[in-house]
């Protein structure tokens, strides 16, 4: 099979592209960093909201009077 330079270059780029998709972009300054952390917290909130919990289920604390 003949491999052209273009095919070779495209193949070499795939892992980097896949990796870039895997990694969230790096925040550049403290404000961006904080916003990214807030976004992650919002994501948590959304994930928790999707889970249904029976009304009678109490939080898993231990209170020892």
């Amino acid at each position, binding site marked *: 099979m003949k491999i052209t330079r273009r095919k070779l270059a495209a193949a070499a780029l795939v892992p980097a592209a896949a990796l870039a998709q895997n990694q969230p972009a790096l925040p550049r300054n403290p404000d961006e*960093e904080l916003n*990214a952390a807030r976004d992650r917290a919002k994501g948590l909130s959304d994930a928790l909201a999707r889970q249904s919990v029976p009304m009678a289920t109490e*939080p898993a604390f231990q209170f020892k009077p």
Partner: protein
Amino acid sequence: MPAIPADVFFATIPELNARLASREISAEELARAFAARLEQLGPRFNALALPLPQHALRKALEVDKDIKHGRLRGPLQAIPYGVKDLISFAGQPTTWGARPFAGQVFDYSATVVQKLDAVGAVLTGKLAMVELAGGGGYRYASASLTGPGLNPWDRTRWAGGSSSGSAAAVAAGLVPFSLGSETSGSIVTPASYCGVTALRPTYGLVSRHGAMALAWTLDKLGPFAHTAEDCGLVLEAIAGKDSKDPGSAGKSFYYTPQYARPNKELRVGFARVDFAERAEAPARAAFAAALTVLKDTGVQLVETSLPQFPYGPVLSAVLAAEEASIFESFITSGKVEELADAAQIAGLKAALELPAKDYLKAQRIRRLIQEAFSRLFADVDALIAPGRPGPATKLDQRLDAGGPTAPAGTPPGFQGIIPAGNLAGLPALVLPCGFAENLPVALQLVGAPFSENTLLAIGREFQARTDWHKRRPPGV
């Protein structure tokens, strides 16, 4: 004084006991040798937070006197050890691995240190860790006052976190055992990466009094050592009721492998996909071989699945809310900016804003998780999974980017077993099980609450058939 034979540095606790009993070696000789080795080699792996050679020598001389007068205090008498630098030792700095706390000194020792002191163990140093045990979520291995924890097997790789020094010090033979802590993964990860045996005890079994609080309902202290048996001996010494720890379960632990149920009666749940598609390719052969060995011990391996819950988000919400409350003044005062890792700083600040409803929802889901695991453990005695899907990450690798992902449609297996086990307060035993790319990989054996003896018995059988736990890193 004669030189200590090199194999002593990698000896198990019973092997050290035999040398002490035969007077081949004294507590003083052990303390001098281990303290010097920790001081000399600890910095090579960024594993050392504080050497304590003078304390070690004083304690060892006292122990030798006790032994001479027949005051025998059990298998840890004269055995050197180190503690993660979030465990206080009276009068000496306890930095929590973080620059803003570099000058912090407590006037009391943690309960675990007092307990080990009472049985004659010899503290030789404090061990390095990720700053504030990484609760804010850190991006790089360098998130530590002492620099990135370097893996004794390959210093271009991370030792794992947050108990980096506790794992690296045992792996490099700098201490026979150490103590670390886990809120979610901080014992399992470094033990897996460094190829040492470690035990995350059931929540509440070991007092946290005198240790940094990161998340009250999640924090646990546990041992790193060379074998499952050593972990059992250490756990027996540090477990027990403590009125100074509100989370204390009020239970003691006695290491009794002689009363363990025969392996053939034990059912161990696993998900085949964890050892294949979900494991990193270089580690699959080691994991497959380990499963075969485990089967050879007589246990029945049964395919099972974890209850489906959003374990990661639930754990993150509980951790964020509790750490925000614990470190509120540290965060609002601006001292948080002195931490090393930008992601950790932002994570702690954002944690202050987590709504109460999210914390409560997470704790309610956690109740369902506990109930689901209780049902699961009616069917199996333990669960087995890789400690981590592959070997230690490279030092410069982003830790918040996620590892390699399995192809779409791959069953979840036991994905999330680390947050799941921590949310349910379950014990876990880490067993080195082979190598991938010349780096160790390990299994984690997870059991029902207070089933440590079952896990240790399985671990002991596994280690009787393998020698992965006896391997030594090159050059140490």
